[in-house]
């Protein structure tokens, strides 16, 4: 049996071809076999998975209506709180931290009967684009294990691309869902800010963070999004929205797709070619290509890093070794206790970002950096608003590179520059989806990004779905676990 997506898996469970417990066992065994090689999971949650699977079997036997996610195995990024299950943020600081409450998304998925296979590896505190800042060692790309899986939700993407989970839940502060999805040949949806509750997501940059799915198709992304896009009274920024699965018609006739040349400057020819070819296919299917301009793109990246690091320096101030987390053993006074705890508990990239955030918020620099970045944020929002009066979505590359070699020699700033296409989306709080649209000369996946106006996930996922249909799904990763029932 080849169980590639949510629908196929759910169908096999409902028809009785395989039980939820048998399926969970098969996924757990596969994950145990391959995790040393891929480092996709920080932890496997065997006891929880088997208990949930048994409960799902019970619900199926009881009959009646149930979610398509019932009994379907998934992976949750390890910065999403799971009561009683270790949640590390891939940091020494939280290596032994066990949350006492659940994240809202975990509550929602559990209510649907989803089966949690494990917690996905990630860049430490979601700060990174390669997964290599993980305290546990970075996740490897199943397409080519000498390459990174991407970041920061790289472990989730690696697990889904390797067929060790049917789908995954990541978080995206500057591209952390879309970039690993692009590197691994998957679909990644960064929802509108506020569409999905952030309660229980361990904060990096609270005004930019958003939770969303990483899947093997647009249809699966819609199914998972529908389950988690609920208003949550315990997250004041959460607004929720209606589900979008019903919008996946595959029709793009009349869709106005914006092409901003700034996103295509200095691209490698294979990435440029693949995204423009996708644009041509949309046009052939009846969409209208609209030339637009986004001159502030060049400021998006530095503005993003100023804002994100400023928020991180504040959010990560809570880690002092007193109430939870790593605690140093050697110190001479309380001040040294806190400083050593933080320096030993955080990795180099996290310390760098805290330093930058503190610098831009400090007296003498606040106006020149932080305040100016906030003004840029407003200006970028205005530019996006103008663009969306003229088109329904923007089409761009997701990343200007394909999966990078592990242990690469990029400097911190060179690594940041690979986020150029994804960060504007978080700055304005818009939704965006990354979908596979080609391969480079090494056979590595290339992703295209569709950006929409707030709460228009329906348009983006329908366009991605239409593209899958037009291209006969040939760019999607088929990584189904082979299950012999």
């Amino acid at each position: 049996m080849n169980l590639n997506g949510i629908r196929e898996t759910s169908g096999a469970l409902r028809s009785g071809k395989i039980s939820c417990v048998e399926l969970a066992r098969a996924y757990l065994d596969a994950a145990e076999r391959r995790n040393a090689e891929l480092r996709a999971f920080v932890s496997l949650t065997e006891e929880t998975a088997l208990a949930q699977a048994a409960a799902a079997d019970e619900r199926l036997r009881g009959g009646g209506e149930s979610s398509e996610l019932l009994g379907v195995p998934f992976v949750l990024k390890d910065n999403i709180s799971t009561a009683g299950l270790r949640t590390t943020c891939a940091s020494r600081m939280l290596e032994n931290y066990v949350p006492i409450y659940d994240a809202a998304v975990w509550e929602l998925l559990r209510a649907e009967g989803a089966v949690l296979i494990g917690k996905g590896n990630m860049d430490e505190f979601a700060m990174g684009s390669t997964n290599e800042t993980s305290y546990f060692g970075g996740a490897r790309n199943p397409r080519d294990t000498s390459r990174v899986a991407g970041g920061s939700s790289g472990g989730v993407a690696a697990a889904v691309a390797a067929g060790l989970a049917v789908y995954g839940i990541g978080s995206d502060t500057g591209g952390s869902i879309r970039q690993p999805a692009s590197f691994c040949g998957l679909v990644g949806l960064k929802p509108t800010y506020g569409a999905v509750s952030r309660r229980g997501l361990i904060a990096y940059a609270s005004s930019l963070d958003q939770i969303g799915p990483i899947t093997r198709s647009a249809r699966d992304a819609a199914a998972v999004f529908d389950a988690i896009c609920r208003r949550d009274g315990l997250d004041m920024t959460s607004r929720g929205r209606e589900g979008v699965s019903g919008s996946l018609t595959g029709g793009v006739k009349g869709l106005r797709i914006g092409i901003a040349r700034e996103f295509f400057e200095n691209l490698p020819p294979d990435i440029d070619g693949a995204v423009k070819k996708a644009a041509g296919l949309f046009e052939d299917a009846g969409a209208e290509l609209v030339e637009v301009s986004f001159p502030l793109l060049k400021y998006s990246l530095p503005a993003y890093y100023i804002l994100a690091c400023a928020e991180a320096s504040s959010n990560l101030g809570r880690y002092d070794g007193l109430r939870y987390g790593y605690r140093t053993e050697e110190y001479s006074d309380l001040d040294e206790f806190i400083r050593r705890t933080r320096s030993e508990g955080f990795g180099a990239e996290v310390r760098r970002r805290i330093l930058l955030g503190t610098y831009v918020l400090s007296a003498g620099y606040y106006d020149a950096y932080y305040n100016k970045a906030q003004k840029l944020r407003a200006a970028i929002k205005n530019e996006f608003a103008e663009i969306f009066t003229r088109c329904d979505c923007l089409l761009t590359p997701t990343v200007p590179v394909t999966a990078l070699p592990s242990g690469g020699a990029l400097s911190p700033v060179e690594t940041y520059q690979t986020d150029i296409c994804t960060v504007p989306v978080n700055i304005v709080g818009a939704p965006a989806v990354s979908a596979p649209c080609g391969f480079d000369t090494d056979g590595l996946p290339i992703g295209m990004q569709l950006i929409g106006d707030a709460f228009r996930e329906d348009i983006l996922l329908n366009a991605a779905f239409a593209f899958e249909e037009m291209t006969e799904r040939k760019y999607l990763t088929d990584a189904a676990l082979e299950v012999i029932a």
Partner: protein
Amino acid sequence: MITYDELRKIAALAKLSLDGEDMAALAADVGEIIEFAEAVAGADIPDAESVGTGETYPLREDVPGLSAPRDDILRNAAQSSGGYFVAGKTGRRLT
């Protein structure tokens, strides 16, 4: 480029220790990032108001409710005693 003195000042504000850091490498990395961020300081942008997220959000009713059980909260602390977190006294080792 950021000077070592500036770096020490920022690290003190951030409650980070620089003991054992390769100061030259750290200064070079942080300096490169600050230089990268300089683009913002010099940006010529249309006159736009500074914003937070640009959104307003509703507040919940301020209703008293149960908090998490104390023992559950203390379970993640490296040291606790009598229902309290234990912080080291100045000049003493904790463990």
